[in-house]
């Protein structure tokens, strides 16, 4: 997206990077028992929510129990996936050396494998945030969200596709790294596909068996209500994670970058790109927790390995620094940010062209 961005000289970018590095160092120095207590508390709440949700579903002969059980299970899955899973897998709590909070091995309650996520998200998306052709999260190979993406007639169905994708988000994420497009275009061998498919299928099977066979069977006569409750809980989680994630990178003013930006990129420039490629959500403390603090998408992209509950405190300083350097800091209420996302989905389902040549470099001419 082209938008008037103040140019910064290499020296200014360096000073800007140094300020963020200093902020990072100040924050890292504070990490300790407070963070350990925090994440353990979240884990505890998540575990109790999950058990309470499943127990209530077993009592679903009584309709309010079904409703509450489904909701609690949905919340438990959201906590597990976002504030715990996503953040732990970034290595935010590796310093604790707790094998159950190990970023390299953590596995979450969702269809996709932790290993695939570590690759598509931690590496590709975070390193090449909003770089065309490198960050697979730009439309997930399914949606056209930027005018720079080539239009095809398929995108006319995008409004419908986007809704289906939202409902089935966990499955979309689960197969993201298989790059089916490549396979169908003949650029990936059958053997490689089979090898990659195996762990993916194993995880999918585990999730299906757990939510749609074992727990319903354990409920005996309440097989169907439990199955339905688990199904709806998964959908609640899918819609919420989809909304939060799309608000993080596909609001109106976020930037898209060409591949060339990553060549010999300086730290300052990298920080600058992360800020322009991300957008925040305003809200209360509980809201931030439920988004896994991805409501602070900007801070998360600057410091993906700092315990996410600290982003709120960091945000004030980041915003102040951005203000001084004239770098736009994109934040807003969820309703506002998400309507911008919806507008992108609708607008770019039809042919569109970049308004101007994209301003891809912060460097003064």
């Amino acid at each position: 997206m082209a938008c008037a961005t103040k140019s910064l000289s290499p020296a200014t970018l360096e000073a800007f990077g140094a300020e963020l590095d200093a902020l990072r160092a100040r924050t890292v120095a504070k990490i300790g028992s407070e963070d350990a207590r925090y994440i353990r508390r979240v884990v505890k709440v998540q575990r109790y929510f999950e058990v309470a949700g499943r127990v209530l579903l077993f009592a679903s002969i009584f309709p309010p129990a079904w409703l509450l059980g489904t909701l609690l299970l949905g919340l438990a899955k959201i906590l597990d996936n976002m504030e715990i899973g996503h953040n732990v897998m970034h290595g935010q709590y590796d310093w604790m050396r707790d094998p159950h909070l190990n970023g390299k091995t953590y596995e979450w309650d969702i269809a996709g494998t932790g290993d695939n996520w570590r690759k598509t998200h931690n590496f590709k998306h975070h390193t090449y945030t909003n770089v065309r052709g490198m960050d697979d999260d730009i439309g997930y190979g399914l949606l056209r969200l930027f005018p720079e993406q080539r239009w095809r007639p398929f995108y006319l169905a995008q409004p419908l596709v986007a809704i289906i994708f939202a409902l089935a988000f966990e499955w979309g994420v689960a197969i993201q790294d298989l790059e089916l497009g490549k396979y169908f275009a003949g650029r990936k061998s059958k053997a490689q596909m089979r090898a990659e498919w195996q762990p993916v299928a194993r995880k999918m099977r585990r999730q299906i068996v757990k939510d749609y066979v074992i727990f319903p069977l354990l409920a005996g006569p309440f097989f169907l209500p439990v199955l339905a409750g688990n199904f709806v809980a998964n959908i609640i989680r899918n819609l919420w994670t989809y909304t939060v994630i799309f608000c993080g990178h596909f609001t109106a003013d976020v930037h898209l970058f060409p591949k060339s930006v990553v060549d010999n990129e300086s730290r300052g420039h990298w920080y600058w790109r992360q800020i322009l490629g991300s957008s925040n959500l305003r809200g209360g403390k509980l809201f931030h927790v439920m988004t896994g603090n991805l409501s602070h998408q900007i801070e998360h992209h600057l410091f993906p390995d700092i315990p996410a509950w600290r982003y709120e405190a960091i945000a004030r300083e980041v915003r102040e620094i951005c203000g001084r350097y004239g770098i736009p800091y994109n934040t807003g209420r969820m309703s506002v940010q998400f309507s911008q996302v919806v507008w992108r989905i609708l607008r770019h389902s039809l042919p569109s062209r970049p308004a101007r040549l994209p301003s891809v470099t912060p460097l003064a001419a």
Partner: protein
Amino acid sequence: MTSLRRYLQPLVSPPVFDFWASRFSPAASWDRVLAKVVARRVESRDAVTLELRANRHFKGLRPGQHVNVTAEVGGARLTRSYSPSLLSADGRRLSITVRQVDGGKLSTQLCQNAQVGDVVELGAAFGDMTWTDTAPGSRLLLAAGSGITPMISLIRSAVTTGTALDVDLVYWARRRDELCFVDELRDLATRMPGLRCHFVLTRETELRDGEHAGRPNQELLLRLVPDLAHRQVFACGPDGFVETVRELLATRVAQFHSESFTPRTVLAAATGTVRVELTRSRRTFEIPAGMPLLAALESQGLRPAYGCRMGLCNTCACGKSAGSTQNVVDGSTDAEPTSALRICVNRAASDLILDL
């Protein structure tokens, strides 16, 4: 139980199991060796004994061996080795005696803050300072500071199993109030004819019965143990102590076994080369200490997994079981074993053992 476990295996997620099991019994776990602190007592001016009861995953240990003990300090888990005494035949009750080291992270935690009811994690037993041979001949045990712990473990087990002893123990400390197990040792020595205890104090002016003065030296040792040359010697204590007695005795006695409770050192220099042992590929390299590990290993022809090369994405993170590293971005150093060392932004600050 085992078959039930096997049947449940595919359904159980160990973290979830551990969470709920620990609500009912703090040291319960699906597969980890946890132990509960069941008693605590002050052992000397600067040492504390913690009695532990391990869960059923603990495989036990032989007297004279050590285990790694892991406990949390400031939210992070730290692992150090200790040499327990066994308190029950099944090996699940044991005691560790921890001497508080000045500025020491885990020893301070265990001495000052550990309480009955706390849970620590245990590793597998290791070390070969054990008494195995059936016809032993006389032994000489040399201990300094916390080096007394494997010795008391060996002596206690011989007493409980009723094994005849022919042992001299020489135990160094700076002051009398730093000595551990004195009453117990004196009592055993009067009851067991084959056990003789000598306490050597280096900074005490007035000596009592059975006490001596002086650092380890030939003359002192010969005075206490005239038949030194025929002894099977076991020495344990700080690195400097073990080195001294090794030089004094190793070639002059029948057998010499030692274990040093070496303090880990952090090498500050960014120059020179270090030895990096890669456990998974079973190879060892000499690499320059100043270079980030990823680049250094690549220059040796290796291809470790990596992503951003900026210390962000965690793709290159690998386990480090020993050695110190320094982060080249923020200058911080880390001497603890870790599951996730980001090799793209860390350089070696000592020899290393990596899980690669």
